[in-house]
């Protein structure tokens, strides 16, 4: 017989049908079904193939702890692998395939691995990937050839290659109280906290909150527990101060009571609504946290415990009570505790035959006996299941006597199609483990309980080891009152609970050691880790719990030991002859369950990538500029679009600037207002040269060093009044310089009265360069003259261009007579267009970054390519800027021996003698052998074709610097397959006297 749908019960809507596809075959289910429940209702037993051995696997659990039924969800060509079938809500059009099988789930070639079980045991990779140590392949990389096939044969699902088109979102939330888990304890805590006026977030990973109330069969306040939970949820939902987050897994607990959660917003829908994300990632900052995350039932470890049809007892109850699915027709129960007897009674009431109850304990309580009687089942006390039979579905179990943990006697064979097992319960302490210290072992419960809190959280319910509904409600009441800061609650505030009084404490036996050769007994189902693997790890010396985990993969990866932790530790404890707490446990890591990468990366790509645009951006684009991403900024590279190559375009732009006039957008330069009575003193301290002597309405070029004496940044600073300076920085370093200056003021010189403000975006900037630059300004600037007397080199004037106030500083990066025109950014386009109009009679050309770079290379001006964090002011021949009259940041360290060495690489010019380009990063060598990649004496920092010189030139940093002027060397650029002769010259290629920019 197969699993089947019951005629009544569950929270599914039998009046409606949903069609979905699994492995290409169409199935139907009902609203409320998970993929697991719907497939079970369709008679399916086989859900997947195991990790290493490709063993047929059925459903083990019914919740987030399911390790076997991992499937791949398909959306078009997009694949999302390794999703537990128990966590997938079916919807119309859902398409799913099984994984880790070939060619099909039923007939899997990988099952041959079962024959090589011994080879694939613990440590397989570590041993195998060392390669053959004997034979003809010894010392070869043979294993690398095998690796591809080995990895394909073992594994989980396959990720797709197509981009994920879904939308993801991040969300921030603040609350007084975060309650994780909406079972009886969590609901009660949320209710009490909310009624006390606290802002509460209640998160639960299931689509329908209620936790165990949905399937316990208990009665609360005269209502079926599920109805009580529903009523409580509705009451909470009606409160403005409560945010309910169903389908939300709190997966990480971080410092400062900051928790991470993943909300699955639309996975259960055929299509999202407009603007709805698939997943929403929540960062929740909570004043207090109530951890009510429940517990996981543990499997028992015996040969054949992974056969489809063998499942956790609680899973069968959930399938029945939530989804109306009866897991089998002829059912056995194998347990070490009373609580599991509920499952036998429940399934019997649903029409299943309970063939037997196999209990490891020699004595069984009267309450459990009463349940067995209700189920019509015999109890085999002091027995254990020692084996199972069946191919892809359970057919028979073997039961033997158990004496002091050893199997004895002849097996009794019992025909069943479903075996329920229960090894007791492990509280889901993962979040507490992340947030705190080592968990505590509870001998009675044979379980690890949460550690003492190191942050403001409180545990409640099964999480705290209080499994009964009444105890959970009492915990929730107390926790809610505590986090609300109120008085301890009166007992009368507790709802009345009607339930069976069952002893939850299990017998301390988790694994049945077979008396002879028997099948594999699995501890970690997801990673195919067997009891024998754990024992082998012990034999091979991996006895520490940390080594055990890594050597066997027990409890690793997405599973995080939800079902396997305690049984694995118990087997190691037995092997070592010590107790479980002496073995200890590993700390659980985030995430508690897998988190989509999309949710973590949400909203920072494509059109949502933050970028910076200058006020003239649209003009550049409309004028045919090829835009270049410079950090977050977009800057024109060249204004092409006339069939020109990039080189042709920048050569044209640079040549036109030298011959006439060019204009470039310099709005991206970092700009910092330095204000206050101590501003000049401050600048003296941070720049290598003096600024306190700078007259008002004058600018000066400045160099900053790092505190270790290396060059940091350069730029001009304009004195606008006695106490106001406008500092400019390189585009790339604007943020870093601002941060460094703030550090100086906050930490180093807090006594200085200086205020810093980023005004990079306040000002639009246009640099006009070339012999006709003054003519252009003269044609459009009002309110001031721009002649040499009024506006000398490094002078500043204020005026207007076409009705817009502007500030003009005469300075030059290009080596030409040049001016920087600044105006309010909102007027940037207007002023730019006015300058272009005024420049028409002089054939003004806009130029981009490439021409800007060409002009500065020709002139020998340095920028970030040379101020690269490794060069000093002296390396760049900026010695003249290093004041000897005052201390400044970096001055104490700049004279260190290593920074003054004559053999340091220093700035030079390079001319290609073979008329070929010189690429940045290429090495300079003295030998003439292209095959020899050695003996570099320096490297090219930036190169270009110089229209002024008619040659390919570059700036470079070369050992000895100017001592090599006039010598020959070679450029060696093996990555770009470039080798050729060069001449080392002065870095001042063009107009070294500076006559063009003065006068």
């Amino acid at each position: 017989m197969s699993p089947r749908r019951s005629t009544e019960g569950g929270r599914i809507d039998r009046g409606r049908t949903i069609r979905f596809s699994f492995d290409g075959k169409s199935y139907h289910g009902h609203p409320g079904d998970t993929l697991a429940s719907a497939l079970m209702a369709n008679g399916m037993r086989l859900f997947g193939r195991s990790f290493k051995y490709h063993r047929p696997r059925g459903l083990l659990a019914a919740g987030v702890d399911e390790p076997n039924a991992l499937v791949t969800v398909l959306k078009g060509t997009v694949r999302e692998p390794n999703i537990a079938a128990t966590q997938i809500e079916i919807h119309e059009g859902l398409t799913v395939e099984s994984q880790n099988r070939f060619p099909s789930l039923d007939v899997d070639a990988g099952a041959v691995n079962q024959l090589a079980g011994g080879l694939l045991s613990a440590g397989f990779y570590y041993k195998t990937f060392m390669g053959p140590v004997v034979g003809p392949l010894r010392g070869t990389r043979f294993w690398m050839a095998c690796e591809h096939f080995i990895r394909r044969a073992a594994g989980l699902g396959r990720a797709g290659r197509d981009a994920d088109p879904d939308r993801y979102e991040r969300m921030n939330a603040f609350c007084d109280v975060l309650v994780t888990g909406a079972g009886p304890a969590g609901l009660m805590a949320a209710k009490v906290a909310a009624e006390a006026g606290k802002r509460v977030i209640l998160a639960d990973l299931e689509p329908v909150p209620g936790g165990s109330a949905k399937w316990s069969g208990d009665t609360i306040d005269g209502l079926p527990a599920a109805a009580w939970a529903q009523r409580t949820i509705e009451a909470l939902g009606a409160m403005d101060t409560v945010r309910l987050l169903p389908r939300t897994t709190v997966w990480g607990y971080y410092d400062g009571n900051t928790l991470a959660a993943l909300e699955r917003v639309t996975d259960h829908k055929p299509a999202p609504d407009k603007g709805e994300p698939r997943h929403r990632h929540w960062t929740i900052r909570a004043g207090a946290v109530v951890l009510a995350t429940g517990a996981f039932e543990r499997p028992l470890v015996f040969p054949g415990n992974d056969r489809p049809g063998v499942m956790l007892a609680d899973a069968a109850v959930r399938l029945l009570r939530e989804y109306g699915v009866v897991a089998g027709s002829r059912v056995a129960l194998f347990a070490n505790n009373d609580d599991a007897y509920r499952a036998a009674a429940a399934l019997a009431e649903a029409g299943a035959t309970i063939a037997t109850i196999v209990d490891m304990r020699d004595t069984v309580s009267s309450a459990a006996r009463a349940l067995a009687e209700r189920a019509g089942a015999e109890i085999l006390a002091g027995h254990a299941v020692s084996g199972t039979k069946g191919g892809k579905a359970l057919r028979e179990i073997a039961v033997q006597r158990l004496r002091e943990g050893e199997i004895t006697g002849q097996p009794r064979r019992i025909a069943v199609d479903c075996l329920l097992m229960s090894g007791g319960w492990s509280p889901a302490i993962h979040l507490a483990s992340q947030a705190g210290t080592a968990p505590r072992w509870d001998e009675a419960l044979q379980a690890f309980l949460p550690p003492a809190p190191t942050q403001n959280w409180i545990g409640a319910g099964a999480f705290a080891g209080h499994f009964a509904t009444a105890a959970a409600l009492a915990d929730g009441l107390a926790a809610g009152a505590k986090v609300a800061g109120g008085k301890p609650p009166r007992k009368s505030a507790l709802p009345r609970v009607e339930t069976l009084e069952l002893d939850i404490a299990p017998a301390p036996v988790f694994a049945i050691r077979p008396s002879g050769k028997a099948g594999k007994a699995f501890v970690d189902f997801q990673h195919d880790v067997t009891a024998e693997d754990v024992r082998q790890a012990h034999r091979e010396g991996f006895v520490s719990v940390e080594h055990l985990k890594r050597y066997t993969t027990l409890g690793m990866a997405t599973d995080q030991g939800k079902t396997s932790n305690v049984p694995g530790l118990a087997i190691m404890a037995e092997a070592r002859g010590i107790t479980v707490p002496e073995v200890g446990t590993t700390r659980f890591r985030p995430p508690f369950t897998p988190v989509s990468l999309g949710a973590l990366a949400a909203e920072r790509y494509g059109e949502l990538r933050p970028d910076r645009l200058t006020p003239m951006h649209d003009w550049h684009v409309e004028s045919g500029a090829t835009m270049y991403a410079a950090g977050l900024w977009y800057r024109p590279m060249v204004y092409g679009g006339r069939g020109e190559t990039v080189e042709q375009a920048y050569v044209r732009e640079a040549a036109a600037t030298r011959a006439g006039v060019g204009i470039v957008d310099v709005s991206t330069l970092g700009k910092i207002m330095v204000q206050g009575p101590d501003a000049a003193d401050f600048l003296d301290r941070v720049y290598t040269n003096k600024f306190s002597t700078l007259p008002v309405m004058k600018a000066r070029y400045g160099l900053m060093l790092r505190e270790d004496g290396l060059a940091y940044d350069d730029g001009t600073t304009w004195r606008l009044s006695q106490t106001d300076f406008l500092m400019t920085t390189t585009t790339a370093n604007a943020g870093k310089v601002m941060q460094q200056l703030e550090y100086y003021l906050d930490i180093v010189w807090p006594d200085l009265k200086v205020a810093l403000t980023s005004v990079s975006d306040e000002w639009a900037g246009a640099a006009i360069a070339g012999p006709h630059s003054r003519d252009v300004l003269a044609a459009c600037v009002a309110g001031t003259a721009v002649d040499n007397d009024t506006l000398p080199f490094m002078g500043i004037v204020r005026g207007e261009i076409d009705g817009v106030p502007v500030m003009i500083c005469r300075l030059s990066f290009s080596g030409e007579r040049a001016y920087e025109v600044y105006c309010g950014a909102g007027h940037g386009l207007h002023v730019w267009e006015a300058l272009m109009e005024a420049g028409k009679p002089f054939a003004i050309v806009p130029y981009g970054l490439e021409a800007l770079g060409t002009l500065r290379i020709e002139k020998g001006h340095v920028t970030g390519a040379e101020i690269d964090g490794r060069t000093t002011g002296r390396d760049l021949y900026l010695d003249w800027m290093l004041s000897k009259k005052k201390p400044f940041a970096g001055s104490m360290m700049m004279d260190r021996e290593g920074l003054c060495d004559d053999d340091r690489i220093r700035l030079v010019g390079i001319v290609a003698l073979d008329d070929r380009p010189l690429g940045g990063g290429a090495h300079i060598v003295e030998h003439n052998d292209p095959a020899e990649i050695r003996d570099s004496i320096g490297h090219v920092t930036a190169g270009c074709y110089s229209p002024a010189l008619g040659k390919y030139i570059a700036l470079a940093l070369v050992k000895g610097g100017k001592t090599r002027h006039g010598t020959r060397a070679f450029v060696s650029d093996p990555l770009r397959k470039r080798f050729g002769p060069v001449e080392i010259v002065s870095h001042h290629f063009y107009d070294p006297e500076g006559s063009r920019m003065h006068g």
Partner: protein
Amino acid sequence: MVEPVSPLGAAWKPGAYPNTAGETGLVLSETRPGSIVQAAAWPGREKTLIDAIKSVTGLALADGAGAGQVDGAKAAFGFAPGKFLAIDQKEGLAAALGAVIDVDTGTVTDLSHGRTALRLAGPKADWVLAKFFALDFSQTTFPLGAGRATSHHDIFAQIQRSGAEQFDLYVFRSFARAFWTALCHASEETGYTVG
């Protein structure tokens, strides 16, 4: 006077953009104030600076980061210890503040072009903002007039609650178009109107 150009460019698309349910629960707009000015006091001179701001704007600010006031066309709030942002729909606020705040009291920095003022109004304003900023936007912790300085990815933002369901955001001009695009994207779920 020449009208400043909005940095939003083609991303500014007035109209209604309802969600699947046909709702437009949010109005997004650019308020384009004439003046956005930062004033900073030297330690111990905060009260003098606050008095100076009041003398010019009529807005009485409490001492301390976060406190603020909104009054029609004018608004101001503290965003850091001793630092305030003052906004006026009219131009000239920087000059007016500069005239009453001397160098011994603090500094005045005109940011009228450097910051772009965006407004979110509607019952879902806090929901949409929570997608961007790690701030508690509830009325109790972020009351009317209060302001905060924060950032979204690389985008620095100053935010003031200017109504029960209304927030004014001041972002760096160069980031404004990117942020606006992200804001519209984030508002698709609730539906929105631009205008």
